[in-house]
């Protein structure tokens, strides 16, 4: 097995094994350390003796032994140790036979996304422990240095241990409140991948992890609508990736993307998740957001008209449930198409510009509307504001081209 293949085995086994060990020994750092130790031993052992039939079971068993050794070395855990030791002896036999790794990933996700963990650390910790991404990979995704990310992860794990964050799965009545933190983490994590339209950055496989994680969440919580809505949203956004930039690396706006370049299998999968979410209860914010994506993805060719009217009514429904400046801004793009540029502009002026000042899309939308309204000089200034704040290369190049449309030769 090649190095890359081994890495894949490790990564896929990571969430299940770290989750099971963390649940058993109630110690995230220990679970993570012994899993790393097991992977290191696997590299030596497997190259000499070949890859075992069930690599995950092998890793679990070795890691669990290492955990027990670690606990033995810590005098303070003597009582816990003797309990666990008895448990372990009873369990180790069947672990040898096949992969009896209890699936504790849901528990692990709930621990990582506990509201007592800092918002900026929840998604990172989930990616580290549940998806098995390296600290360096996560650091790149969040645009911080590896040291900063390592500190953030260490601090989060210490907080979980010191504050007494429970390792039990919360009772079902607390799920809705906690699930929101989990799904927000997934959205933040996917957002990082989505910002990079060209997928040229370090996020390419990161998006794949989010597809995997959302399908896991749906599997684990089949009766909840929200995970299915997020699973749909992530797939619909990801399906459009091949059409998001043109051959010269320029961003292509959604309404100008060629639907034939979208990934149909992903869209079909998403529609399955979305109808499941819609059937489970009244439309929530996330379900409506997914429906907006779905409306776009129902377009099959560039020749068929863009679904503006349908998207408009979905945005109106969304605004009733979540009235915030970002929703209003996105809605304005649709207003311009359905009710005209002038009414979009007048609504834009009523938005709190102060609140959105550092939000690049605000300036990009404003610039586009001003350009279309013929207010060339204002548009140019707005493009400059947008260009100051934009992070992705494809978008920057697109904005630069748009700006060139309002450049008038000095007379």
């Amino acid at each position, binding site marked *: 097995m090649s190095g890359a293949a081994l890495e894949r085995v490790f990564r896929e086994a990571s969430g299940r094994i770290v989750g099971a060990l963390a649940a058993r020994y109630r110690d995230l750092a220990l679970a993570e350390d012994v899993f790393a130790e097991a992977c290191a031993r696997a590299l030596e052992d497997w190259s000499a003796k070949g890859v075992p039939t069930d690599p995950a079971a092998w890793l679990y068993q070795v890691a669990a032994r290492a955990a027990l050794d670690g606990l033995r070395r810590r005098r303070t855990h003597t009582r816990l140790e003797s309990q666990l030791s008895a448990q372990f002896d009873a369990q180790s036999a069947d672990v040898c036979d096949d992969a009896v790794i209890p699936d504790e990933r849901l528990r692990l996700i709930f621990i990582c996304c506990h509201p*007592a963990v800092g918002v900026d650390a929840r998604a990172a910790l989930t990616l580290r422990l549940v998806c098995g991404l390296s600290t360096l990979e996560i650091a790149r995704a969040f645009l911080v240095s590896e040291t900063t990310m390592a500190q953030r992860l260490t601090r989060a794990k210490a907080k979980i241990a010191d*504050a*007494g*964050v*429970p390792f039990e799965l*919360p009772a079902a009545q607390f799920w809705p409140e906690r699930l929101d933190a989990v799904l927000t983490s997934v959205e933040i994590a996917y957002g990082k991948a989505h910002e990079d339209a060209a997928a040229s950055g370090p996020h390419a496989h990161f998006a794949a992890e989010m597809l995997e994680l959302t399908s896991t969440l749906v599997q684990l919580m089949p009766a909840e609508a929200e995970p299915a809505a997020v699973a749909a949203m992530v797939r619909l956004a990801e399906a459009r990736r091949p059409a998001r930039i043109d051959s010269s690396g320029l961003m292509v706006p959604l309404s100008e993307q060629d639907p034939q370049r979208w990934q149909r299998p992903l869209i079909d999968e998403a529609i399955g998740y979305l109808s499941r979410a819609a059937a489970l209860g009244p439309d929530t914010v996330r379900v409506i957001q997914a429906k907006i994506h779905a409306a776009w993805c129902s377009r099959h060719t560039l020749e068929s008209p863009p679904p503006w009217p349908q998207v408009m009514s979905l945005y109106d429904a969304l605004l009733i449930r979540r009235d915030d400046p970002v929703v209003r801004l996105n809605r304005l793009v649709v207003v311009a198409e359905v009710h005209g540029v002038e009414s979009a502009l007048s609504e834009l002026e009523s938005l709190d510009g102060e609140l959105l000042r550092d939000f690049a899309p605000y300036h990009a939308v404003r610039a586009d509307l001003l350009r279309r309204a013929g207010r060339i000089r204002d548009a140019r200034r707005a493009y400059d504001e947008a260009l100051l704040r934009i992070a992705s290369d494809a978008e920057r190049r697109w904005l630069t081209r748009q700006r060139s449309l309002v450049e008038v030769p000095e007379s």
Partner: protein
Amino acid sequence: MQYALLIYEDETLYGPGKKGPAIQAIVSRHMAFNRELGAKRVGGSGLAATSSATTIQTKGAKHTVHDGPFAEAKEQLGGFYLIEAKDLDEAIAIAKRVPLLQDGSIEIRPVLGPG
């Protein structure tokens, strides 16, 4: 695990020197809450107004004594509970039930164990 629940409220709501009529009302609610907590309550007390606070600052082995609380803020530490809870979630559930006159914050701090 033991947790300290630190209660932060705008003490001006309780009148000058925390001697207004609201104090009686909140004290009886705290007494009822104490009974509710039973053995889960390890200790705790209300604190007199910050106007009665004295702060000793130590810098390089030199002590300075001055009038007033450690930090001036909109909400002040007005009392605390010491509770026994099985984990943070139980502590959060208890903290949500701590009586407050209006708005306020409860900071949950694990108590250092014997190590």
